[in-house]
């Protein structure tokens, strides 16, 4: 055992937290405080985006128009997506990266601490801009989060605000990604070789590369939209020699890697949790790394499967179909490895493990429906129906969000020094996992039967499944309010203190330091004992 660095910390005069509120939170350069800011921001956005989903499900409870105007319904679908993707899921992952990566690799902080502050502090401004459009006379953007022209160019005053808000979010993401790459490549403690890093660190390294590669492409795409609307360019105007389909190509060149940006860190979280509670090293560690890299590479060459019905040449349809199906291979490797990690493990089912298990099963369902959508002739039937909505909510809610919740329960003891209430957390889990399936599973049937997405009204034969879905939606939404209560309780009122190694089977440097983690950790690089490492079975 060697916990030398942390012992040293207690004698370090610089270890005190900044005393003033502004000094601590507004001017912070501390990876833990900035991580907390990200996570709190993400939770707030999750609840705001969730309220929008509640409005959508309330309107869809029965056919006909009852609660909201169709245009407002479209604003809700658009804003729900933008808020959840850029405000909830991505900042949550960056928050987890901020908190955990320096502690996992034995670094004193992020490589570029001032820029880290800016990465976060752009987001509240960007989302204030985005949400302010809800209060404009012409309303929020209503053309869908994909902003397809020409429809998106016909919106009101919100348009320019959305474009600039996306620019700010993009700058934030790129700076965050640069920081994460520099931290991982430059700040590892001696002996923390690349192939000894925890898988969460690996998946984030690859995700950060994806972010740097594609966020600027989104910036370019929305800049072209802006100039088409305000400066008379013709990028997406066929009369001027451009092409509205071109926007879709550029957008999805960003958009497809973006969906992996939202799932690869989830893979990393689950790959930390399952070995802990199976009390076995991760099965196939190296193949996990290569599978992650393969998925990232493939994500760049499959984008047009989002646009099979747009009118592509047959060769394009075939290529994008086969390339998309290839992704099932590395993804299958991952699922196989998670299951094999549990094989003959000494399993216990604390809350983080329950969420991780639900992730493996439900994310796989989302993966299978993705394979169905990859088949071009079948996609002609599924395209723009609720089947697609069901598919991407299985991968994003029961995939990304479930993994984030799993990670929060798993690492919260390390952050706060307190244990959450296990009974409440288990209630939260079962409540969520049942309601989320009531919410999204019927949407498969609705889509197969032909119900289109992004429409506030529907034909009467879809009523029953929609009512199931809405009931599941309200229940799932309420469960997440309960989640917020559990978190507040755990942070401020919980009497149960967490040990340094909060989970019996947990491995990794983060568990060698006290709970709560001191304000500064690893001011001098720790000596790495290979028994402490999750990937220690390598040698």
């Amino acid at each position, binding site marked *: 055992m060697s916990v030398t660095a942390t012992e040293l910390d207690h004698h370090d005069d610089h270890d005190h937290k900044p005393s003033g509120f502004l000094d601590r939170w*507004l*001017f912070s350069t501390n990876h833990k405080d900035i991580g907390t800011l990200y996570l709190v921001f993400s939770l707030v956005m999750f609840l705001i985006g969730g309220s929008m989903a509640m409005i959508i499900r309330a309107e869809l409870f029965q056919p006909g128009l009852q609660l909201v105007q169709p245009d407002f319904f479209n604003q809700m679908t658009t804003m729900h997506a933008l808020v959840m993707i850029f405000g909830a899921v991505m900042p949550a992952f960056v928050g987890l990266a901020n908190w955990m990566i320096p502690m996992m690799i034995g670094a*004193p902080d992020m490589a570029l601490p001032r820029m880290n502050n800016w990465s976060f502090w752009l987001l509240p*401004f960007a989302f204030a801009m985005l949400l302010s459009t809800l209060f404009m006379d012409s309303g929020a953007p209503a053309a869908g989060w994909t902003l397809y022209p020409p429809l998106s160019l016909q919106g009101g005053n919100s348009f320019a605000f959305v474009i*600039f808000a996306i620019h700010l979010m993009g700058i934030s993401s790129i700076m965050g990604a640069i920081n994460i790459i520099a931290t991982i490549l430059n700040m590892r403690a001696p002996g923390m070789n690349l192939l000894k890093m925890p898988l969460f660190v690996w998946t984030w390294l690859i995700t950060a590369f994806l972010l740097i590669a594609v966020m*600027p492409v989104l910036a370019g795409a929305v800049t072209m939209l802006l100039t088409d609307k305000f400066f008379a360019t013709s990028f997406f105007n066929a009369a001027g020699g*451009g092409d509205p389909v071109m926007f879709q190509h550029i957008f999805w060149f960003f958009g497809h890697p973006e969906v992996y940006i939202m799932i690869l860190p989830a893979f990393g979280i689950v790959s930390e949790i399952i070995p802990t509670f199976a009390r076995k090293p991760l099965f196939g560690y190296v193949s996990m790394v290569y599978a992650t890299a393969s998925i990232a590479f493939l994500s760049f060459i499959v984008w047009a499967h989002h646009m099979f019905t747009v009118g592509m040449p047959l060769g394009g349809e075939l290529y994008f179909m086969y390339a998309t199906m290839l992704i099932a291979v590395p993804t299958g490797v991952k699922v196989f490895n998670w299951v094999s990690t549990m094989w003959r493990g000494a399993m216990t089912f604390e809350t983080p493990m329950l969420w991780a298990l639900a992730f493996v099963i439900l994310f796989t369902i989302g993966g299978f429906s993705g394979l169905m959508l990859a088949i071009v002739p079948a996609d002609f039937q599924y395209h723009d129906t609720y089947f697609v909505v069901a598919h991407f909510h299985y991968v994003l809610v029961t995939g990304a969000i479930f993994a984030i919740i799993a990670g929060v329960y798993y690492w919260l003891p390390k952050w706060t020094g307190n244990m959450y209430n296990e009974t409440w957390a288990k209630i939260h889990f079962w409540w969520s996992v049942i309601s989320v399936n009531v919410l999204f599973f019927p949407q498969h049937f609705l889509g197969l039967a032909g119900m289109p997405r992004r429409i506030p009204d529907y034909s009467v034969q879809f009523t029953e499944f929609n009512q199931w879905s809405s009931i599941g939606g309200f229940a799932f939404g309420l469960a997440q309010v309960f989640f917020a209560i559990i978190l507040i309780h755990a942070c401020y009122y919980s009497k149960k203190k967490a040990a340094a190694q909060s989970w019996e089977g947990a491995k990794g440097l983060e568990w060698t330091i006290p709970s709560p983690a001191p304000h500064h950790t690893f*001011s001098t690089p720790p000596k790495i004992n290979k028994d402490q490492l999750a990937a220690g079975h390598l040698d």
Partner: protein
Amino acid sequence: MAQASGGYYVPHGTKWPIVGSIGLTTAVVGAANMLNGTFSSAQAMMFVGFAIIVFMMVGWFGQVIRESEAGTYGHQEDISFRMGMMWFILSEVMFFAAFFGALFYARMFALPWLGGEGTGLSTHDTLWPSFENIWPTNGPAHIGGPFETIPAFDIPLVNTLLLLTSGVTITLAHHALRKNQRTPLVWWLIATVALGATFMYFQVYEYIHAYSDLNLTLGSGIYGSTFFMLTGFHGMHVTVGAIMLMVITYRCMKGHFTPEHHFGFEAVAWYWHFVDVVWLGLFVFVYVV
């Protein structure tokens, strides 16, 4: 206010990022309101925002320069800065890739289809049966009216030579710095700035010529869109690069940098080579082909 924490320098507390966020937000909210025409002082708001950004950059970079000159940064910090710059330049490459992609897509797919190539694509037959795909074009509706283009082997060729030469001069400046020959260092840097400024002079001249004599504008269909957006964003990057060059020239005159420790210089040189390479792509694909 900043303290070295153990081995790696972790600054404590920084006000500049929040100033930057306020500046950026002021600028883009001003710009959005200006575009929407919602209130008359929106433009002024935008410029106030830009002023705040400049203030932030001077303050933030100034602080880093002072820390660097005080010897705060060691080898590991140096690598962090290098990685930061390297990946930032990659993100810039991808930003330009979006616009190059638009140009290639329009020329390889959109325009041939509008001209009647391919099967099952009926836009040509039903809407514009008389449209022929001949580059340069402003599309079947002749958006922006008839226009002429700027020949490649005229000012653009001169500009290519100017930028390539500036790549040589900044390398000579770098060699001088490594040999600690301060006078040639400063003169080679001044030559680089002068070449960049001449490039920008010709670009502005060319834009005025295009708008006033050739009727080639941002609104000249897909040709005008790709031409001005690609060369315009490149010109903005050259301007930023030239400002960065002026800053390091001034720093060299003040005696900053040592033959071993001069990442600020190298970062600017990397950036300058990057705008140089983008220009080569522009020259080939926007002007020549």
